């Protein structure tokens, strides 16, 4: 960069001159963080040094998540629930990152993160009630399945429009920072969502206002049928951090410890006032986009097979078994226990009544205005629809 007195790069301080300041250490490194080596040892550079118990616990959640996922797909195929959108193959990304957030840190979900919410303590029954949209569903069956909410566990509210949670997570963390509360936000989204308006707005505000936000981009290769390469011509998704002056990090999204380490570091930086980090986890959506999707129409079986060989659950199980921390017996016991618990929840959920008709009019506003009172009366006094559980 030339530096004669009149070059713009030396221009006197209009505030824009910050744009010409000295480059800090590169915002995005080329490294892909990995911890669990193929030989079963851990790379000490990034090893988060979790206790054996903690790793086993997190592995158990990965297994549970997968069992629940699998069962929900079946229920959908049987027509007993309307829809499911799961996390098959992305368990290490979801559980590893959620585990790295401190209890006070808020999680803003995309829609594949029910595992994170279970990890945080939401009773399985509550989740299953949501899947059935019954009167026990805290959301009163108002939204589709998998549009859960979890305020008691510092967890946001799922909505379908892609990306909206990103800007909200930034604002939430920003507010905490204003109030000097020790809190970061962890927001999930897919690589497809990086194309949304919201990613741009959110990341830009995060950079300008140095908010304590961890952007967790699950690069699972696909946005429904659109491959990641069609989503952006950037070299990596983490590189997008440069546009916002925040840090960018990539990690092996199928390596629980790598995801944990990357997220933990980002959370700690955020908490120290060092601003936001965009984490790209390299993972793969092993299932269809949702129960409505058949991926055979647009991707090769070979690609899926190759990724199956990197299944995060299998990898972590191998690691644990090598260390003598896990066994086939433990696996069977866990699977059985989860299946039983799940069967019980489904039974309860299926028996529960649908939400009341009145519930349809509540919570639009804090109090029912006259027009909704009128509409409610009209509905109540009129005949019932056929075709659902009234």
């Amino acid at each position, binding site marked *: 960069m030339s530096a004669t007195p009149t070059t713009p790069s030396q221009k006197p301080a209009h505030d824009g001159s910050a744009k010409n300041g000295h480059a800090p250490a590169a915002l995005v490194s080329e490294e892909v963080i990995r911890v669990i080596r193929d030989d079963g040892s851990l790379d000490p550079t990034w090893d988060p040094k979790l206790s054996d118990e903690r790793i086993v616990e997190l592995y158990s959640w990965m297994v549970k998540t997968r069992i629940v996922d699998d069962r929900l797909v079946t229920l959908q195929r049987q027509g007993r629930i*309307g*829809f499911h959108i799961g996390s098959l193959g992305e368990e290490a990304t979801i559980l590893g990152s959620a585990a790295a957030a401190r209890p006070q840190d808020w999680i803003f979900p995309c829609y594949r993160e029910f595992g994170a919410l279970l990890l945080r303590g939401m009773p399985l029954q509550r989740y299953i009630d949501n899947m059935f*949209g*019954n009167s026990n569903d805290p959301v*009163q*069956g*108002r*939204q*589709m*399945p998998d*549009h859960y909410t979890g305020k008691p566990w510092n967890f946001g509210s799922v*909505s*379908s*429009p*892609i990306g909206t949670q990103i800007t909200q997570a930034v604002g939430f963390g920003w507010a905490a920072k204003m109030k000097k509360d020790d809190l970061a936000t962890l927001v999930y989204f897919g690589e*497809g*969502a990086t*194309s*949304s*308006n919201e990613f741009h707005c959110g990341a830009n505000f995060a950079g300008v206002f140095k908010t304590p936000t961890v952007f967790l981009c699950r690069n699972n290769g696909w*946005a*429904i*049928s*659109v491959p990641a390469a*069609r*989503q*952006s011509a950037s070299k990596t998704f983490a590189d997008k951090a440069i546009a916002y002056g925040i840090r960018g990090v990539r990690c092996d999204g199928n390596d629980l410890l790598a995801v944990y380490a990357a997220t933990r570091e980002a959370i700690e930086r955020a908490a120290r006032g060092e601003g936001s980090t965009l984490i790209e986890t390299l993972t793969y959506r092993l299932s269809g986009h949702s129960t*409505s*999707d058949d991926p055979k*129409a*647009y991707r090769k079986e070979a690609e899926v097979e190759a990724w199956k060989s990197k299944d995060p659950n299998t990898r972590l199980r191998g690691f644990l078994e090598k260390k003598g921390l896990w066994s086939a017996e433990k696996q069977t016991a866990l699977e059985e226990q989860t299946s039983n618990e799940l069967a019980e929840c489904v039974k309860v959920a299926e028996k529960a009544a*649908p*939400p009341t*008709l009145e*519930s*349809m*009019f509540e919570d*639009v506003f804090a109090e029912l205005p006259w*027009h*909704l009172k009128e*509409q409610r009366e009209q*509905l109540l006094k*009129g*005949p*019932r*629809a*056929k*075709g*659902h559980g*009234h």
Partner: protein
Amino acid sequence: MPQMNMVQAINDALRLEMRKNDKVVVLGEDVGKVGGVFRVTAGLFDEFGDDRVIDTPLSEGGIIGAAIGMALYGLVPVPEIQFSDFIFPAYDQIVSELAKFRYRSGGEYVSKLVIRTPVGGGIRGGHYHSQSPESQFIHVAGLKVVCPTNPYDAKGLLLASIRDPDPVLFFEPKRIYRAAKGEVPEGDYTVPLGKASVLKEGKHVTIVSWGAMVYEALAAAEQAGAQGIDCEVIDLRTLWPLDIDTIIASVKKTGRVVIVHEAPKSCGLGGEIVSLINEKAFLHLEAPPARVTGFDTPFPYTLELEYLPLAHRILPQIVETAQY
């Protein structure tokens, strides 16, 4: 004549026009290889290639903004928005740019395109896969809005929309994508924009509706008929500009009208129709024009069949209006 459902008829129209006019391009999320999440664009990618059937990044603003630019260049883009609930990231481009291009440039620029998008409830989609946002576009001057009810109209209206000189929002009622079937001529024909169709003549009560609810209106009309109330059922087909003549002629005959739509009641198109009837046929009114609509709440999941203005909710209103 071949039997088709709505999906097939729309697909047929697209294919026909793309063969005829190499300026027509389709773009959107998942419209290419997989042929759209409802398979409406199925097979077009194979026939016309990646340059005319384009899978885009996940960005409705990009889809519509780029389509406007293509249209300024002289292409005729037919972008798809995957669900009309997801049109809002592109709302600024649509209402501030697309709708105003001809006007603001004194006719120098025309941004001619057709936005196709599935609309309405009935597939258990909850808040975000069920909405009917037509009035949010009609209020903005400069857009034509179309919503077909059957395969014949779907093909004919889509062809007319693509050839119309103005930008068109083409709402496809997803509840009847496959359920509505009928004979569809092979080859070229159009159904003119701006013309409603009277599906059933009657003398006691006029029912005005569009999209999937037309079938509910017909069912309710039939049930009303059994009670001696003879309904005239109008399918708007083009929501804007309205076919006011057909509506007013019918109301002058019946003096009574019930408007049925899925969208929330307040500031919906129903209210506009009531007002126009007041302006143009006040002295013919024997009863207050009534509306049976979606409620003024977000679209619910479990209770969607209670939310929608189905026949069981239309019938009592027909009776009330008839007996007023």
